[in-house]
């Protein structure tokens, strides 16, 4: 019960980030929104692991966090003309 409230709130958070992702206005804004959404999603994945009672899903969250961090850095470096 309470978990579904958590999930709803997280869903709302993701929607908010998506709004910013779509609105922009600058590319950096979108990147920031993306970065935020990934953090939220990492948390979501961990909570989902709890929901489904599957320990193994934690690995998924970790992989996700690692890859998305690198993704964000790559976007940032791209935006500042570093690559």
């Amino acid at each position, binding site marked *: 019960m*309470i978990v579904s409230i*958590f999930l709803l*709130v*997280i869903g*709302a*958070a*993701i929607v*908010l*980030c998506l*709004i*910013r992702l779509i609105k922009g206005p*600058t*590319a*950096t*804004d979108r*990147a*920031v*929104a993306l*970065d*935020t*959404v990934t*953090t*939220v999603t*990492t*948390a979501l994945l*961990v*909570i989902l*692991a*709890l929901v489904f009672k599957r*320990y193994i899903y*934690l*690995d998924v*969250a*970790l992989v996700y*966090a*690692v890859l998305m*961090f690198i993704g*964000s*850095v790559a*976007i*940032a*470096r*791209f*935006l*500042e*003309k570093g690559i």
Partner: protein
Amino acid sequence: MHIAGMIAIGIGVLFLFLGSFGIVRLPDVYNRLQAGTKCTTFGCLFAVLGVGIVEPAWFWKALLVSLFVLLTNPISNHALGRAAKKSGVPLWDGSVVDKSRDFPSYANTEKL
């Protein structure tokens, strides 16, 4: 333990929401970064640790996840902020000061 964990998760989720709200609400990219990273990092930290508390067997891995987020989010935050500044995204009109011109590598940045 279970209840403590759930409370931690609740706090985390709340801050995740607030961070996302800030992303939408705050006026420029720098302020959004403030909210986006700070609140969501904190929220993620609490949520993950909360899960670790609810399921004690998962604690160490949850800790690892949270430490990773704690370490990497400021870095990506910084990278994005720097990217914004370097690519010339202007500050919000209500900003009171911009000292970046005094800073070595920004001296020749044209538009701020």
